[in-house]
């Protein structure tokens, strides 16, 4: 495999603080808090899954929070965002309602998908989240169509497709790149390149570790960004999204990152994979998107250790209460299985 990512794929690099001087304190705090909420929510899910309280699989993206947070900062609620199996962050970055996520993961009627979806089928269209599904490339073409519709409807809304480095190995993704380009669809292809598809390292799956080569092949303007730098992610996506709202057609952003947990549930997956060691995980944890933002904010007096501790303390309490509430919520009625197959009026 060609290591086109070079330092971006080296976990010993990019441990530095991110550059924050050009952003408002308000925006920095919002992004920091959003990342912490997502991290803590997923840690709660990991523990609960380990304790056997969650019946189905949870694909956790802890470590990858900067991507969804950096992108979503430039989105509006009428945009059309689609995810896949690892989409808790994509949803929470648009709507930090972890109670509804807990309820959904527990299969409760109060959840985002009324308890019909669980972790892998999430819905919050009023906030722009059209849906996520576990067929990893399953929604990419849907996002292109929703973006094409945005143009037909005369809006400046955009589509967003979150795509993993594994999903680009499914053919429909390439059809979608091509279709979006020839029809000038306002869609942002967000490639979360965490170097792994389930247990398999990208070096065993592709001839290059740089997914952006497919943007070049389809004449789609692209950016390659440190995905654990929320400010760089925000900056890059903001420019692309501004262009798209003005009619530029599709854009492509590749963000290099790493997940703290294994493919599914709470384990490290160092024993089932290739090229994934505890040493690697520790190094990647040092390239932590939260720490790399919080540290310079504290150094520059925009944020304090006390504020952070207090925020986390309140958040922990909120998460604990939300979890208990979700645990006590009702399941869907038995007839839901048949009632949701078709639209009610039809």
């Amino acid at each position, binding site marked *: 495999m060609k290591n086109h990512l070079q330092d971006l794929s080296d976990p010993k690099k990019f441990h530095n603080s991110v550059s924050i001087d050009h952003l408002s304190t308000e925006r920095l705090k919002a992004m920091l808090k959003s990342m912490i909420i997502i991290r803590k929510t997923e840690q709660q899910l990991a523990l609960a899954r380990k304790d056997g309280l969650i019946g189905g699989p949870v694909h956790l993206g802890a470590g990858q929070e900067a991507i969804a947070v950096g992108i979503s900062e430039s989105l509006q609620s009428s945009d*059309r965002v*689609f995810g896949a199996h690892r989409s808790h962050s994509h949803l929470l970055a648009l709507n930090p309602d972890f109670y509804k996520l807990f309820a959904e993961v527990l299969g409760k009627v109060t*959840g985002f*998908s*009324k*308890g*019909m*979806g669980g972790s892998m*089928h*999430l*819905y919050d*269209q009023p906030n722009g989240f*059209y*849906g996520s*599904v576990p*067929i990893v490339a*399953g*929604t*990419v*073409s*849907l*996002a*292109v*169509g*929703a*973006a*094409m*519709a*945005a143009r*037909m*409807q005369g809006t400046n809304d955009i*589509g967003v497709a979150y795509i993993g480095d594994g999903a680009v190995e499914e*053919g*429909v993704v390439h*059809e*979608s790149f*091509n*279709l979006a380009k*020839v*029809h000038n669809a306002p869609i942002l292809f967000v490639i979360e390149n965490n170097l792994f598809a389930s247990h398999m390292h990208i070096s065993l799956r592709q001839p290059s570790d740089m997914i952006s080569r497919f943007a070049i092949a389809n004449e789609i303007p692209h950016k390659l960004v440190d995905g654990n730098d929320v400010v760089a992610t925000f900056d890059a996506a903001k420019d692309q999204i501004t262009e798209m709202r003005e009619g530029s057609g599709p854009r492509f952003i590749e963000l290099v990152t790493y997940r703290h947990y294994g493919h599914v549930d709470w384990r490290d997956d160092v024993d089932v994979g290739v090229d994934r060691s505890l040493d690697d995980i520790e190094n990647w944890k040092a390239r932590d998107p939260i720490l790399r933002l919080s540290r310079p904010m504290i150094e520059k007096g925009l944020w304090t250790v006390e504020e952070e501790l207090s925020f986390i303390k309140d958040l922990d309490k909120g998460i604990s209460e939300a979890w208990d509430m979700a645990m006590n919520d009702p399941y*869907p009625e038995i007839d*839901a299985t048949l*009632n*949701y*197959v*078709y*639209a*009610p*009026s*039809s």
Partner: protein
Amino acid sequence: MKKHNYGTAILSGFEYLLENYPEVFVIGQGLWSPWYVGNSMTDLDKKFGVERIIDTPVSESACTGAAVGASLAGMKPIVVHPRMDFMIYAMDSVVNQAAKWSHMLGGQSHPGVTIRSIINRGGEQGAQHSQALHAWFAHVPGLRVVMPTTVADARDLLIASVLCPDPVMYIDDRWLYEQEDDLPPVIELNLSDQRPRVTQSGSDITIVGSGHASLLSRNAAIILKNDKISAEVIDVRVLNPFHVDEIISSVKKTKNILVVDSGTLTAGFSAEIIAKVVERLPVDCLNNRPMRIALPDAPAPTSRVLEKDYYLYAEDVINAAKKVLQR
């Protein structure tokens, strides 16, 4: 002289939808040069513009998915697959996404997409240009499956499919295009109210089919009259969700059933019809064993001699009906 044939009836359905519903658009291969689809889409691009009649790259999967996604954003798209065989590339968008979207997300979002796929066989086109896969799609909960047989249904079920909030697989058959009939003014039908329909009344045997098989059955029934056999023909029209009451009422009257299907036999829709009817009939209701005829369990052959032997004709329906009745 009749004003319409099956193909122009489909065309008039498209025109009605595009004229009356700005959220309708059409996407698929060959739409700016629609010679693949007979006379069913002629000049739509010129009349309604290339922004609404969208010709595409050779990407069955992405184009179908794009239509599903556009429907989630409030549009009423129609995807056109001039040959059903190519649509197999789009199975994920149809089966995993469109059909399950409402259910897996708690009934909060409905992909009101129509997928028009065409059975286009004969003419020595062979195994990959000839399939009738309606039974596959009828097996998928959440996907409505429509097979119009008559000229009026070709138009009206297209309109009903597009106006339905659920995903619909609308399957037409090139072997139906030559039928001629008058078209009454459009009445917008609610697809969920559409049921199997008796297209010819009779008292000796019930013959059930959909699409081209239904036309064959009707033609056979006319000839059977000469042999003093009164056949009642039922056109299924909507395969999923499948309503069976009309068929059961008919069989209770005729006490005989023959099912004709334009797909292959094993695990075909003919099996579903017989099973649903027989399991609901009183024991001893039937005078004779139920029977079904369908294509052999083999891919469509190419050579004209084999092809001629492979497909069903009215004569096969006539012989089968006589066999059921032991005449």
